[in-house]
């Protein structure tokens, strides 16, 4: 394990509940600066809930979540983002009553070194062309770009990305892969929930595998080929 000071996100013994149902059963994970780590697992294994729990978007939680050096369990939901974290939800969360540019400019800057609007439009030329369209009129791929671009503009240096390739055409998935590699080069820290293992495998540094609200396996990039069989069993692919 790398040095403690390098750690951008640490989750310890995290339990989460929706009403009476106990969804997460003691999650332990950490992501270091500049690392891209995935949460793999079947549907319903608790991966999305883990991201939402980090953002304080679920009902009741216990345990510890440390973001950029700050313990966040006692913080109100709107304080979390300002620690330098950006969340891209599974359903993308594009607002239909806002146009593309309004969607893009909606989240307040949480750090000073976010991408400028020009840089964003350079990275995603489609968004520039459609900047005055209603947000939800974009294609699925464009909406995903928008959801991603939106948090890059805020300067967040930890990104929580939920199923960003889901339901998208291969050419868009390829583009998203390139974007993630660029973000890694910028030394951003990324926790990625992913169904598409073939998308995640070549770009990730580490993988956590979840099952029934627990982390059951941690796999380093170098161990991938040795553990392929195990992963196939766990993921049911």
């Amino acid at each position: 394990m790398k040095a403690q000071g390098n750690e951008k996100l640490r989750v310890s013994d995290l339990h989460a509940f929706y009403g009476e149902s106990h969804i997460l059963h003691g999650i332990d994970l950490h992501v270091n600066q500049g690392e891209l780590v995935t949460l793999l697992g079947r549907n319903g294994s608790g991966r999305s809930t883990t991201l939402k729990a980090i953002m304080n978007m679920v009902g009741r939680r216990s345990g510890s979540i440390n973001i950029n050096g700050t313990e966040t369990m006692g913080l109100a939901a709107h304080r979390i983002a300002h620690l330098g974290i950006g969340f891209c939800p599974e359903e993308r969360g594009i607002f239909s009553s806002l146009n593309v540019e309004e969607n893009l400019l909606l989240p307040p800057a949480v750090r000073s070194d976010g991408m400028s609007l020009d840089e964003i439009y350079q990275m995603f030329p489609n968004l520039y062309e459609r900047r005055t369209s209603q947000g939800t009129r974009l294609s699925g791929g464009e909406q995903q770009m928008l959801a991603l671009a939106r948090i890059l503009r805020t300067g967040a240096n930890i990104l929580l990305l939920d199923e960003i390739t889901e339901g998208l055409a291969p050419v868009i998935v390829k583009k998203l892969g390139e974007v993630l590699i660029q973000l890694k080069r910028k030394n951003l820290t990324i926790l990625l929930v992913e169904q598409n293992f073939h998308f995640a495998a070549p770009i990730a540094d580490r993988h956590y595998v979840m099952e029934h609200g627990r982390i059951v396996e941690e796999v380093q990039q170098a161990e991938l080929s040795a553990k392929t069989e195990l992963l196939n069993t766990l993921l049911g692919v």
Partner: protein
Amino acid sequence: MDTILGINPVALFGQLLVGLINGSFYALLSLGLAIIFGLLRIINFAQGALYMIGAFLAWLGLEYWGLSYGWALLIVPLVVGLFGILIERFLIRPIAHEDHLYSLLLTFGVALVLQGVFSHVFGSSGKPYSIPEFLQGVANLGFMYLPIYRGWIIVVSLLVCFGTWWAIEKTKLGAYLRAGTENARLLQAFGINVPLMVTLTFGFGVALAGLAGVLAAPIYSVSPDMGANLLIVVFAIVVIGGMGSIGGAIITGISMGVIEGLTKYFYPEASNTIIFMVMVVVLLIKPAGLFGKEV
């Protein structure tokens, strides 16, 4: 020549004017309801009582504290808005996580309590409030005489309604409000203080009712049940317009006032029920309302 094709233009324009004025109040009140509903998902039954309080504060101000109409127009909405903020913060917020039905019933209770207290203290008879001097008189428009104060009501409420619409549709603050209406939880995850926004929004929506109350004081009699009477019609209007859009609330409010006015001229017997008839028809054809989104 008094009539054209059997229509008496003076009487017709007179009723149209009454319709426009009523429509102005409908628009102000339903706009406030729509803004509050958007973010809090509750229909604020206390809106009528707060309108009544707005009128009473204007009357009290003039009667006891020497507060002129002009100042009342500025200060009363702020006071009513502040009162609304207290209601949201200390009554609605604690039960906000329960079913919205509880908050709705709570605002209904608040309305009854306020109305009861004002009846007890001030009696149920109407209080007179004279039109301020600088708005007295009548303007000759050529085709009709327009009492200046009535024109003033229409102009002020149109300006306020349009200003509110503009602020919500075209500004950054409005973008937060629109986004919060759609998905408050995600907006909060982006770092916006949504609970504070909810409180301020409630205060603003309620302040609109307070403003309507001040505008109404000189032309309707100021009485504890003035809000309850108006609110029933405003609810019908909200149902007709649907809760989907801010612009929809304004347009429906004004046009229902005008339709009511026209009915008063052409078939006065139906003038009290026409809005409810429109409501029934709209519910049958488009249950979400004219501007509402189907759920």
